[in-house]
């Protein structure tokens, strides 16, 4: 039986939802607000909320001091590159798990996911040594590979869940129609899974964009993405909250905009398999 929704109840739940949303969003809002303050206002006690002298000064200084575009470009290359490479590897993997499962398929999926539970720092040393050995330190190529590997279990798992919703008979029909395995995946499976693949790409671009551990540890200057850009404001000359906030705002703005415009896909991506 559906629960009766009275107007009063609806008003209360709406208010609660807004309150929860605001609490979650508050740190980001505060960062954005702080980026428009002077350094003195940023640390004033009691803190000022909206009534201060709005200034763009911090953005000017940040842009002057470091080349934002270079960091941005590195972030774009690393997050898109790692995601697309990951999808290219995960599509065949998820195909075989979804359509030709074996007794061990579930175990393999769980094992893959379990690698996500490993503390990253546990493998920092071997990976760092490998990077030195292969000359990959501070290279975008190296980061693309590492971040792809970090996110690969999630990409495979998500695609697997989407592929399982596609009726096997359609792929069999393609086989009967003379499609080779490659054609079956390219012309039938992939177009049918476009919404799923899109959510997977979106989510993983965001995960890769925000990834800080590996990007901070394996880059210095050349390949450093926006995470390193923010970090560079956190200490060298003491804490400058307003400038740090401006840098943070510049770093998260692109992904925030992307996330905002793709909300629908993202929600579907995050609740995959939950309905049905």
């Amino acid at each position, binding site marked *: 039986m559906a629960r009766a929704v009275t107007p009063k109840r609806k008003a209360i739940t709406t208010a609660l939802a807004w309150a929860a949303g605001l609490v979650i969003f508050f740190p980001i809002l505060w960062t954005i607000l702080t980026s428009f303050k002077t350094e003195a206002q940023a640390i004033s006690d009691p803190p000022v909320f909206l009534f201060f002298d709005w200034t763009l000064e911090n953005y000017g200084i940040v842009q002057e001091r470091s080349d934002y575009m270079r960091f941005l470009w590195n972030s774009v290359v690393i997050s898109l590159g790692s995601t697309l490479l990951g999808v290219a590897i995960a599509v065949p993997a998820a195909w075989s798990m979804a359509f030709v499962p074996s007794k061990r398929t579930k175990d393999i999926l769980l094992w893959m996911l379990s690698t996500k539970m490993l503390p990253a720092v546990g493998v920092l040393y071997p990976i760092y040594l490998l990077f030195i050995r292969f000359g990959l330190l501070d290279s975008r190529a190296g980061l693309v590979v590492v971040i792809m590997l970090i996110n690969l279990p999630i990409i495979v798992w998500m695609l697997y869940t989407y592929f399982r919703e596609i009726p096997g*008979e*359609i792929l069999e029909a393609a086989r009967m*129609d003379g*499609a*080779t395995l490659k*054609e079956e995946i390219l012309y039938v499976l992939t177009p049918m899974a476009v919404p799923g693949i899109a959510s997977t790409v979106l989510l993983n671009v965001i995960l890769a964009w925000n990834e800080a551990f590996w990007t901070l540890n394996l880059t210095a200057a050349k390949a450093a993405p926006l995470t390193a850009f923010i970090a560079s404001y956190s200490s060298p000359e003491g804490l400058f909250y307003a400038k740090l906030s401006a840098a943070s705002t510049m770093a998260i703005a692109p992904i925030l905009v992307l996330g905002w415009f793709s909300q629908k896909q993202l929600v579907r991506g995050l609740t995959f398999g939950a309905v049905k």
Partner: protein
Amino acid sequence: MGRITLDKVTKSFGAVEVIPPLDLTIEDGEFTVFVGPSGCGKSTLLRLIAGLEDVSSGQIRIDSKDATDVPPARRGLAMVFQSYALYPHMSVRKNIAFPLRMARMDRAEIDRRVEAAASVLNLTDYLDRRPGQLSGGQRQRVAIGRAIVREPAAFLFDEPLSNLDAALRVGMRLEISELHERLTTTMIYVTHDQVEAMTMADRIVVLRAGHIEQVGSPLELYRTPRNLFVAGFIGSPRMNFIEGELARRVGAHTLGIRPEHIAVSDSGGEWSGTVGVSEHLGSDTMFHVHGTGLAETITVRADGEVGFKHGDRIHMTPRPDAMHRFDAAGLRIG
């Protein structure tokens, strides 16, 4: 050409043998129907022929060439699935053209064949729609269109009508039969519906638990079923089976008599009984009669005008030449 031979073909899933060694030849141009209750292995058998499942042992030959290890795409067969299995992201035109595109046929020839198939199947006006915008019957026609453009050696149908409503099913049944008349290509059709089997088939293969129970023309199966299973499966309403004294009198363990082969009267006859339920179909009336001294309820098919009611005492006379005798093992005698 499309002569398909199964030679001692078996199929096991793990330790479970779903098709014990099976031999069958389907002649070129024949309309063969695999029929049987659900789980009898008829779909598995079709998928083995299609190549969608690998045989566990034995050989499949298509036009005397060994096709056992040939992938589905290269067997020259076309299949129509129960769920239609259309490509939802492609227009009707692209769906029908897909097998031709995969065969790297040139554009002009693809267009010509798609147009021809569409006109045969009354799909010309729908060529630019997506499958989601079509009715069940239209979708099924697209699936058939996709199969016929390839001019395959044989068509395989896997319960193609079971998702359609009753009226549409009768219409599509006729369309498929007409298609067979026109193309004269081998067709193998899987169904659990014995009416579809009887009306469409040149030859019916009755399956149970992976075994072939009998192969024959619809009328052969109707007139001389080889055992109790076939006798009970073919014909609607199903054959009456009588055991005990009445059967022993004709030298059988089980006596079989079809509802349409029993005459009823209120004056006199060999057996008597009381009318239980009567079902009026207009053209016919089915009486379910509790026979005197019989454990079983007897179903009788009478003319629609016969007006017995619940509780009436009636007499029944089986047609002597239409009685089927079966031994204790359920096999036909004589």
